[in-house]
């Protein structure tokens, strides 16, 4: 994807953490993200999926400018995020976090919470700010009388609406949503997914949605990136990636999803292995211990992400047929 068209992009991103030895556990360097390239186009929604510990949240923090990459760079609106101030980043990319029970200041009113980014940015009269805040509160499906309430008086779904309003108030080009509905009840999750869907249409926003819930991906994002052990292992149109996975890992994730249909069997217990320890990475493909297709080459060489036709990419020596 051409760089100029991207609202948000990553080029060869790495992030390592030094881990001190504690008790019996040895220290070392934990490579949480090991070379990720991605580009989010204007108006596009991409989902980033993978198990906990795969590096997806570390990647998100870098894309939000909250954590500097060890190597590589983040481009926000075409500019290197390392050269931008926090305020400049915040004007273009905003986060929506998982748990609206901890991400909102309980002492502030809804209007204060939503308006804070405007106050921080400065340059607007109070009246103008109030008008924008009111518009945002209504845009996310709350009524004007919510302005004076505090988070403690709101339900989970209402709080997540407030988080979204706060993210939108500085008119960013992109939202990075980390598990935006995981903390919500099912009936409320549907409302928030619909809201995200609507405001994207209306405002021409771009989304990067980080989630472990593949069914949510299907409803929100045209493109899906599958991350494993710090790298992208499969990318492509959501329908293709989830419908006919190329990477055995994607297939494993897909098969583990339990859907509310009658008479569903538990997935086969083929996968008892865990992802390897990032402090002690294996040779070759980090998925091979969990993979039925693994061969000698998988133990020797870590596969690179390569084009696989139809706008898809896969990092596997023995991809599945499509």
């Amino acid at each position, binding site marked *: 994807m051409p760089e100029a068209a991207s609202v948000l992009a990553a080029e060869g991103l790495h992030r390592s953490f030094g881990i001190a030895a504690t008790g019996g*556990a040895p220290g070392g360097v934990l490579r949480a993200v090991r070379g990720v390239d991605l580009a989010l186009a204007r108006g596009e*929604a991409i989902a980033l999926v993978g*198990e*906990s510990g795969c590096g997806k949240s570390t990647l998100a923090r870098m894309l939000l400018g909250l954590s500097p990459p060890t190597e590589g760079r983040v481009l926000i609106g075409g500019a290197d995020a390392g050269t931008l101030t926090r305020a400049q980043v915040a004007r273009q990319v905003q986060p929506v976090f998982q748990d609206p029970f901890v991400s909102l200041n309980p002492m502030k009113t809804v209007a204060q919470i939503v308006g804070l980014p405007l106050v921080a940015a400065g340059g607007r009269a109070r009246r103008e700010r109030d008008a924008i805040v009111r518009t945002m509160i209504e845009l996310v499906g709350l009524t004007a009388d919510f302005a004076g309430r505090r988070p403690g008086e709101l*339900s*989970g*779904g*209402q709080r997540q609406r407030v988080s979204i309003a706060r993210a939108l108030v500085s008119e960013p080009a992109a939202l990075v949503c980390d598990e935006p509905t995981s903390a919500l*009840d*099912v*009936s*409320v*999750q*549907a*409302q928030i*997914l*619909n809201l995200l*869907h609507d405001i994207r249409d209306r405002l021409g926003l771009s989304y990067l949605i980080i989630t*472990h*819930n*593949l*069914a*949510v991906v*299907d*409803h*929100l*994002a*045209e493109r899906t990136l599958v991350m494993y052990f710090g790298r992208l292992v499969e990318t492509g149109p959501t*329908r293709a990636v*989830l*419908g006919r996975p190329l990477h055995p890992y994607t297939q*494993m*994730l*897909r098969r*583990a*999803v*339990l*859907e*509310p*249909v*009658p*008479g*569903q*069997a*538990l*997935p086969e*217990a083929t*996968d*008892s292995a*865990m992802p390897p320890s990032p402090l002690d990475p294996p040779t070759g493909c980090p998925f091979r211990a969990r993979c039925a297709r693994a061969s000698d080459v998988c133990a020797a060489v870590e596969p690179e992400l390569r084009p696989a036709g139809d706008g898809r990419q896969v990092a596997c020596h023995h991809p599945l047929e499509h």
Partner: protein
Amino acid sequence: MLAIEDLHVEFAGRRAATQVVRGVTLSVAAGRTLAIVGESGSGKSLTALSITGLLPARARRRVRRILFEGEDIAAYSDRRMEDVRGRRIGMIFQDPTASFNPSLRIGQQLEEVHMRHLRAGRAAARARALELLDLVGMPAPEMRMAQYPFELSGGLRQRAMIAMALMCNPTLLIADEPTTALDVTVQAQVLRVLADLQQRLHLGLVLITHDLGVVSAMADEVAVMYAGQVVEQAPAEVLLSAPRHPYTRGLIRCIPRLAAGGAPRHLPSIRGSVPNFAAGFTGCAFAERCDLAVDACRRAPIPLETRADGQAVRCIRADATEPAYA
């Protein structure tokens, strides 16, 4: 093996008590799984905690009786209940971190349960702990025994908790959202362990969950709770293929599905959110969010009626046709 009859739970308040469980009657047989499904505030967890009397301090339980293997355990003293808990009824919670003592090794915690309840010696307890860690599919059980809870991954910690719940050979297992905090791949592993053990040990299982996918894979019977009441109860297959209560129908419909495929799109949703029922309600608790509600729904309490096919529904409009969804 377990029958709860007319359970009520209320929280004492400054002015008035708040009812959170309002007349729940449920039962489960040996070797079978009863799933209690509901959203937050539905009373599903309090119903489960009521069985063993582990309610929060402010909560009061009122129940006709709780029959467990022929005994009314609702009448038991705290001391007698302590013997039932842990020994005859095992419990598994969502967050294994909170159930383990962080400063004791896994092995020691497992052994202690056994020694305390069965007055067994250390050696017997250790053998039993190893046997169970093996049974729940814990890799390298000897090594895990010597580890602290924080050294285990979420999935392994949950397996250790299942092992701990089984240390004294319980006949009934109560699992409150046992896989909610886990990745889907790990969830599948843990559910398989639970299902295998249940079959092998002929355990009764009460599974509290908000996830109808888990229900489909695990449950024989399902009770759907809303605002402290069972609003629908049926065999899992029946409930998932032909839900009758408008809340159950809405709940099933609003779950995003993979199988559907296709471009990003709108999901049907249930409007509004669960109201605050502190002040109580007359009639149907779901009426405010229901597209089928009529005046009669709000006038008088709605009974849970068992239909000819064994499906029980608390709705007077269950046979009405729903308006089309946009």
